């Protein structure tokens, strides 16, 4: 049993069986993380570089922790403090790192498709840790893991993806994954932040009314407003966004059922999520972060163990 792919570039390339294998392996790693010694020797002969061309707290630390818990050796690269600042190209940088006998590359880049480009030119296995507005596959997987943990199954689960869908690689990975696993999806947010042809492209339903989405769903995955990717204003002000599309405690209290609130982080408190929602009983945001390590361990373990 193994993955059908050599790299994890996106959920788009995975089969349903791949996703199931990753999630079930992550389940076992989650148990490992509860032990007195939270570490296994599986990847002690593997060296992994974390190549971050874009800022990150959670993803980078989560990957690094996952690598160390698997006993892999790790190298960290941040573009701002490296020779990339002197103009070295991505491919040159990676080839130089690989010549030091590095086996795997975990990379984040602001350009969509950067890991796909790299995969065509280097022999090492690549894990996409977020590329531009394309995909963030390990986030999609850890969201699915957290939903399954809370709700039992993804089959038939009603998931609302709310907020800045346009600029969100998290949304894209979630949609690919949930569709493959048989969940139902509604995307909600301001018309300027929902891609025009998303219904045709992904087969998801669209609403511009957040309350309507909340009433329909079992799980609401709320996205961060990505101001750094918006070249022109797409809504009038953050305050107005919060009033029309932000999720408040009073909205959850009006529902006749208990829904689950998720967020990939970092949260803009008081914009897409109010603090009493983010820290409230509906929220599993910190569980998502906890599960992230186990899911990334599973991905690295399954990709490193390919015979070749």
């Amino acid at each position, binding site marked *: *049993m*193994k993955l059908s792919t050599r790299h994890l570039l996106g959920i788009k390339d995975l089969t349903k069986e791949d996703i199931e*294998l990753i999630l*079930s*392996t992550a*389940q*076992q*790693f989650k*148990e*490992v993380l509860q*032990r*007195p*010694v939270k*570490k*296994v*020797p*599986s990847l002690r*002969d593997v060296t992994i570089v974390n190549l971050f061309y874009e800022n990150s707290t959670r993803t980078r630390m989560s990957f690094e922790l996952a690598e160390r818990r*698997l006993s892999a050796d790790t190298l960290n690269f941040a573009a701002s403090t490296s020779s990339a600042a002197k103009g070295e190209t991505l491919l040159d940088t990676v080839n130089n790192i690989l010549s030091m006998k590095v086996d795997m590359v975990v990379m984040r880049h602001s350009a969509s498709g950067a890991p796909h480009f790299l995969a065509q030119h280097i022999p090492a296995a690549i894990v996409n840790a977020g590329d531009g507005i394309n995909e963030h596959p390990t986030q999609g997987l850890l969201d699915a893991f957290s939903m399954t943990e809370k709700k039992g199954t993804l089959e038939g689960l009603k998931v609302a993806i709310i907020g800045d869908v346009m600029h969100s690689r998290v949304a894209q990975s979630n949609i690919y994954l949930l569709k493959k696993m048989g969940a139902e999806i509604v995307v909600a947010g301001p018309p300027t932040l929902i891609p025009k042809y998303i219904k045709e492209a992904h087969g998801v339903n669209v609403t511009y009314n957040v309350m309507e989405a909340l009433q329909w769903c079992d799980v609401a995955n709320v996205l961060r407003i990505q101001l750094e990717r918006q070249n022109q204003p797409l809504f009038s002000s953050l305050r107005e966004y919060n009033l029309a599309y932000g999720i408040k405690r009073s909205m959850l209290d009006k529902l006749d059922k208990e829904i689950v609130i998720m967020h990939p982080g970092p949260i803009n408190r008081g914009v897409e999520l109010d603090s009493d929602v983010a820290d409230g009983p509906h929220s599993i945001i910190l569980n998502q972060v906890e599960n992230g390590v186990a899911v990334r361990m599973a991905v690295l*373990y*399954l990709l490193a*163990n*390919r*015979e070749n």
Partner: protein
Amino acid sequence: MSEQQVALSIKRLTHKILENHLELDNTVIIGIQPRGIYVSDRIVDELKTLIAPEKIKYGKLDITFYRDDVRKELKIANKTDINFSIENKNVVIIDDVLWTGRTIRAALDALLDFGRPAKVELCVLIDRRFSRELPIHADYVGRTIDTFPSQKVLVHWKEKDGVDDVVLV
């Protein structure tokens, strides 16, 4: 080995464990996933007829992430379930077949990540002696057999294969 012989061996192994660890006062039983569980389940069932069930501490250990051949073949990980401390306990590890000793080496490494046991013993249904690749031996053995490396020992269980028996092919 026929079904009756397997059942008798399980009974004997259970009594031998109990003989050395009266009432299992400071002793825990750990089965190795996946196939050692069939043996350990039966031994634990047998133990329950001999001592108070609440005295039996029984866990399951998966060793997939500790294997030394991960690069050769990817094995599916099974559930590890040890909901008690093994610190300063006598641990009896149970597996179906002892062959090269590599599984038990991995199991010892995995076990030590849960704490420092006072003593670790090994119980197996079948011991294929003369084919060890590591200096490991079993303390409780159902049956010792001499085999060629090319031969296979197939252990069948009712739950999975419809019948309890051991066949050499």
